């Protein structure tokens, strides 16, 4: 069974990557997850300078889901390069660096700095995090702004640029076309959905950041629909993200049009989830009559299932 795949020029041994923000920089899961066995690792969002993030509490469990309002706390690009990147490089991981900024220039500055570093395989622009008031969020709604930030980053690096879209928009296909036209090499979909919970005991919002991003199995159907729509709107590859827990879930995303997937929240409950998915994937593909990952990509698209 051939489980290899590719996201544009980035070749992956298997289609399962760790999702940004849920896997730190890798060593946190030392002893539990072998990063070089994964398709790849998307690290926590990196800004030009350290960001402090939101006040706690930062997580709240919901039915089949999780609300978080970390607020993009990160050590800044220099500390990331000096302290965090060496581990992933030494492990031989396929590394996707998620980048964030308040302005187009900030995104481009991080991309330019990372362009000089060995051991990075792609950049993923988080233009979609619901946890910051400024910056990211407007890029996530406005096709013009999203295209402009994509073009700015493309001009600052030779690395492949993936753009991570927000589901919190009414025109996902329009957003996808805007970033594709601006030169994006791939689209990651989706980031978390904006949500909120109230702590009844304390009579206040459950999260320190008041609203947060919903992840986990609760959002999987929303993510499948996003991948379905985006993969038919553009010609660049799509990385599917949202609520994946099993190899069958991965196959669902592949058939909806994803070339690879990322697993986030599932790792909190089961650190071995990604390894278990990778192990089970060949059997699941065979069970549903596929002889490779490549054969499953977009298999459910119109025109392919009428046979």
């Amino acid at each position, binding site marked *: 069974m051939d489980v290899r795949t590719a996201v544009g020029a980035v070749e992956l041994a298997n289609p399962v990557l760790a999702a940004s*923000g*849920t*896997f*730190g920089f890798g060593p*946190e*899961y030392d*002893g*539990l997850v072998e990063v070089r066995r994964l398709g790849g690792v998307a690290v*926590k969002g990196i800004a030009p300078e350290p960001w*402090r*993030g939101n006040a*706690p*509490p*930062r*997580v*709240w*469990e*919901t039915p*089949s*889901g*999780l609300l*978080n309002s*970390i607020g993009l*706390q990160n050590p800044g690009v220099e500390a990331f390069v000096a302290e965090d990147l060496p581990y992933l490089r030494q492990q031989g991981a396929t590394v996707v660096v998620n980048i964030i900024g308040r302005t187009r220039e900030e995104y481009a500055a991080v991309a330019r700095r990372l362009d000089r570093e060995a051991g990075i395989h792609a950049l993923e622009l988080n233009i979609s995090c619901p946890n910051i008031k400024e910056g990211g969020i407007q890029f996530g709604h406005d096709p013009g702004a999203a295209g402009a930030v994509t073009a700015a980053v493309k001009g600052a690096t030779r690395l492949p640029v993936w753009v991570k879209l927000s589901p919190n928009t009414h025109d996902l296909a329009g957003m996808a076309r805007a970033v594709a036209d601006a030169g994006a090499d791939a689209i990651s979909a989706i980031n978390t959905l904006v949500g909120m919970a109230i702590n009844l005991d304390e009579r206040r919002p459950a999260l320190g950041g008041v609203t947060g991003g919903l992840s*986990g*199995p609760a959002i999987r159907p929303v993510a499948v629909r996003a991948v379905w729509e985006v993969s038919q709107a553009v010609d660049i590859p799509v990385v599917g993200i949202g609520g994946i827990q099993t190899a069958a879930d991965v196959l669902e995303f592949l058939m909806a049009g994803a070339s690879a997937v990322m697993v986030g*929240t599932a*790792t*909190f*409950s*089961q*650190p*071995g989830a990604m390894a278990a998915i990778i192990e089970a994937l060949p059997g699941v593909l065979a069970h549903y009559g596929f002889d490779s990952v490549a054969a499953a990509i977009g298999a459910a698209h119109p025109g392919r299932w009428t046979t």
Partner: protein
Amino acid sequence: MPQFDLPVAERRVPQPEHVELLLEAPALAATLTPGQFAHVWTPGTLRRPISFSRTTPEGWVGLLFRVVGPGTAWLAERRAGDRLDVLAPLGHGFPDPEPGPVLLVGGGVGIPPLFAAAQRWGKTHPVSVILGARSADALVMADDFRALGLHPILTTDDGSVGERGRVSGPVAQWLARQGGGQVMACGPTPMLAAVAQLVGGGRPCWLAYEQRMGCGVGACLACVVPGAGADGRPEWIRVCHDGPVLSSQRLLWPQDA
């Protein structure tokens, strides 16, 4: 930190709504530091953090918890022979105390990790114990401390056992009586803040902290509390990875932050 699939050797009900599960885990028992915790799988999206309450000569480790919601309710249903999926040992526990008197202060379900501390240091140090709870039926492990030859001072909010009131009174008396010594505490955050304030900066004070967690291993940055960095500037401390036991000197309290 490894992941274990541990059989429940024994289930105890020390008080109503409180359960202690003893897990057969000789390898883990041999390496535990009091104050470290387990991130325990329960149905749903997140694991549940629970401190280790004790180790036993059979190579068992204890998890003692109060039933407060669906996760702890599911755990309370476990029976001897069932298995638990735990990540452990997580975080940093209490450091080895310097020679001299040690005061252990536990509030409610903050008591269990202090019993583990009493097991570890009760024979090497002069240990005093102050335990507090809302009422007699929420006060756990007093007999376990007595079985170690210790004489815990008990306080309850309603006076149903021990002195009526909070732990602060007896803690202040102990501090006044002892010139030096060191303090280890675990309980609700307001209790920890009160203990830290009473102890002041003069003697070591170690607090086992709680915060809502995601991963439990330092990756997601969910479990932060405000602290003071080396240069005195505010920084976030991850309870799961840098704690849960933290020096009171490193923490910023709401009034300082």
